[in-house]
Structure formats: structure tokens, C-alpha cells
């Protein structure tokens, strides 16, 4: 099992879905079902973290005279 930290939202929610599916089928041993639940909780936390990182940050690329990007500057598009 790969580390939950560093997973993208999509990776985390895909595995979470798989974990929940497994738990709901109910054909896993008790020990395993508890381990699965713990894994699911970690994945859920990861998903929620990624969802919490919903910050709007709009910037505009600044260009040099020959059109090369030099940096960013805040953009207020209104």
C-alpha cells in the first residue's frame, strides 16, 4: 500500500471507494476489516485535506520584451 500522504485527490478517493466497497461486501476477515477501516479513515482525511485546499489565487504571467515569462503579478479580473 502506498503512502496516503502525497496522494492526489483522485488517487485517494479512488482507493477510498475501493476500500468502502470491500468493507461493504463483508467478505473480509475481522482483522482485515479493521485495517481496511483505518486505511479508509486515512484516505478520507487526505481527501478532506485536498478539498480544504480550495483557495483561489489568480496571477498573471509577466513577460519580457521577447515574450519570455519573467514572473507573476496578481490579477484582478473583477
Amino acid at each position, binding site marked *: 500500500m502506498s503512502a496516503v500522504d502525497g496522494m492526489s485527490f483522485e488517487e485517494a478517493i479512488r482507493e477510498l471507494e475501493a476500500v468502502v466497497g470491500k468493507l461493504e461486501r463483508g467478505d473480509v476477515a475481522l482483522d482485515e476489516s479493521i485495517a481496511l477501516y483505518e486505511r479508509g479513515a486515512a484516505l478520507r482525511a487526505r481527501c478532506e485535506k485536498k*478539498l480544504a485546499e480550495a483557495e483561489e489565487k489568480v496571477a498573471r504571467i509577466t513577460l519580457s520584451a521577447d515574450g519570455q515569462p519573467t514572473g507573476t503579478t496578481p490579477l484582478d479580473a473583477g
Partner: protein
Amino acid sequence: MDLFEDEPPAASGNQPEFTVSELSGAVKRVIEGEFGLVRVRGEVGRVSRPASGHLYLDLKDDRSVLAGIIWKGRAQLLSTRPEEGMEVVATGRLTTFPGQSKYQMIIEDIAPAGVGALMAMLEKRRVALAAEGLFDAARKRPLPFLPEVIGVVTSPSGAVIRDILHRLRDRFPRRVLVWPVAVQGNACAPEVARAIAGFNALAPGGAIPRPDLVIVARGGGSVEDLWGFNEEIVVRAAAASAIPLISAVGHETDTTLIDFAADRRAPTPTAAAELAVPVRLDLVAGVADLGARAGRALAQGLGQRQTRLRDLGRVLPRAEALLDPARQRLDALDGRLPLALRAVTAVKRVALADMALRPGLLRRALTGERERLAGLAARLDPALVRLLRDKGEVARTRGARLRLPVLEADLERRRAALDAVVRRLADRAGRAQDQRRARLAALEQVRLTLGYQATLARGYAVVRGDGAVVSGVAAAQAAGALEIQFADGRLAIGGRSAPRKAAREEPPEQGTLL
């Protein structure tokens, strides 16, 4: 014209003479004066772009050709690059080129002649780019489910970027990087192409974050307004983008070539934002739902196991209960035991009382048994003696039969029989020997009688010459030495003592004879 045709001879005399340059100059002035501003429609013929930067092209229709030039400075500003076969309207002025006796058009602007012509050209270009595989479905990349950074190539001011940001904010606020470009005019295509390539060129984790999704957007406009997004450099940049790219150019009904090269086409900039990110609240609800389902599933799993355990526990009997029947049986037997013992004792006691056990009776019985024992003992000794005697008798009889003389007599008898046989054998052999000896003597007698030696005894002699028997005079004369054999010996006649020896001395003669 009429004037020239009517009086050509008369005019010849007093017409002024021009130099070639004077005439060319006059023609130039007339032409430039007359055609200072013209619009001409035609098909673009041969196009050449020499290093000078000027653009030379022919305009033609089915009968005539007009040479055209677009000076370098103008050529760079054109919104449409003229291509061979394109139906165009050119605006400019006519002039002459006296050095080659040519007239030509200096073109200030050139534009496709109507939408039909533009579309025909667009279709041609689309087919050519499609043939290269730039629009293949296999090239399309899936969009990321939730991009962290979204790059937007568009004008930094205006409704488009506002619409996109709005919709992103509604759905899932993200980091947005706007790469400002001109969205129409001549600068549009090169800037858009450079922006797409520029986003791709950003290093992951660099000072400017590299987007994981790019949106190329522009609001609605005329075909000409959107033309930059049909340019080949833009199409190629979009096709080459390693970052998934959404095109959102114009309104839903507008189609530009970048739409074919993009990984997804959005009908409007707002729709592009919807394609770009999922709705955050949906995801929050979805994750919460998954969490709840996980909890329920675990609880249910535990509950099921608990129920099962309880059910099984109920079915399992108590250890006490297992022992109860045995204990009850023990109790029952325990109660009956004293009674049974008492009953048995009572019965036996009655029987004992009935038996009337008296000493006299016992003594009589004892005496009787003792007498029987004495009787048996008395019979025991004689029986033993008799048994010994009988066995001894048998042993003796067997021993007597085993005596030596009997064996010796037998041996003697067999030896005599053997002697008789041997004797008979010797007799018979001796007799046969005698008979053979007598027969041999008789045969010897006959032999002697028939042989010549017996004749010698009666006075005959044998003559030999050189070892062989000589039976005539001729042979005797021929022989070197003669030998006469009598009954009692041999006599040699002649020079040689022994014919045998002589024979040995003359081997060469013999060899010759042979």
C-alpha cells in the same frame, strides 16, 4: 482611339519624340494617377517570399494575370497570409516598373474574398493537418480529475477570464495563471502558440508553478476575429502540448482548428471551467458519504459477528447441564444401594440358618475325603514301577536289535557277492584274451607262409640292384652294385660295399634321373 485610327499618317510628322524613359515616366504618371486606389478580386497565383521580406504574388482570373507586391512592412501586418489558390480581395494601387516594361499592383491589404473562400481554405488546411495525425484520438490526453494549477491563455481583461474565474470559484477555487495574449489580429497566433509552449516549458516545482491543465479561451467573434486560432502554429502548439489542453474559442457554433488539436473542446469559456474542475461541495459530500459508509460497513460487520457469536453461544449447552443427567443417575443409584445390600444379607442369612452347620457332619465329610486320598496314594507307587518296567523293556529290545554281529554278517555277505562278481569278470576277460592270442598266432603263421622270407629258407634269394629288387638280366647289368639276400643275411657284390650308401653318394645322378 478613333483619333489614332483615322489619321495615323498625318500624325507622324509633327508628333514630339519621347525618350524611352520619358514615355515610361508619362505612362507611370497616368497609371498611378488613374489607379491610385483600387480593389481587385482574384485568385492568388504563384507566391514568392525572397529574403528581402517583400512578398511577390500573382493575382489571376481565367484570362488575365496581375503582378502584385506587398512591401515588407505591410506583409508583417497582414491578418491573412495569402496562399496559392486563395480567393482574395486585394486593396492597393497600380504602378509600373519601367525597368521591365511592367505594370503591377502595390498591395496594401489583402483579405479572403468572402466567408466561403475562407472556409474552403480552412477546410484544406484542416485536411492537411489531420493527414499528419495531429487530430488523432490516440493523441488525446485525459484531463486531470482535480488540477492544482490551471493555466489560461487569453486576454487578461474582458469577459472571458472573468467568466472562467467565476465558474471556477463556484465549483472549486484553484490557482489560476493567466498568460496574456492578443486574441485577435496578427499578433494573436504567434502569441497564443508561444503561450501554450511557454506553459509547457515551465519546470515542475519552479518559481512559476507549472499548470496541470491549460485552457485556451476567447469570446465570440467573426470568422476573421477568430482566425488566429486557425493558424497552423497554434494548432501545432496545441497538439504538441504535454499538458492536457481545453480549447474554448468563440461561441458554441464556432469551430476553429485548435478545437481539433485540443484534448477537449468546450463550447464556451464557462463550459471550459466546468470541464476543468469538479464541484467541491459534491466531492465533500461524496467523501463524507464514503466515510459514513465505511463506518456503517465496519459496524455492520462487527454486529453480524456479534449476533453470530450470540447465536452460537445460545446453542452451546452449559457445562453444568452436560453433567446433570449423570449426577441424577448417581443420586438414584446411591439411594438404592443400601436397600439392595440389606435385602441380599437378609436372603443369605435365611439360607445360612437353613443349612444347619454341625461339627459331626463336618468331621464325617473330612474323614471320607482323607480315605479317598489314602486310596489314591496307595495306587500311585505300583503304577509308577509298572510304567518304568514297561519302558525299560522296550528300550532293551531296541538295543538288542542294534548289535554288531548282525551288521558284520551282512557286510560279509555283501563282500562275498562282490568277490564272485569280480571273479566272473576276470574269468571272462582271460578267456577272451586267450582266444585273441590264438587267432593272432594263426594269422602270423599264414603271413609267414605267404611272405618271401619263408621262400628264402627253401634256397631262393632276392637280388637287389641299387636298393631296388632286380628281376632280370638287363636290370642287373644296369645296376651299379648288386646285393643278394639270403635267408640268413645279405651279400654285396660289386665295387660298393653298400648300395644304400652308394645311393646316398650320388644325389646329383638321382636328381637327374628324376
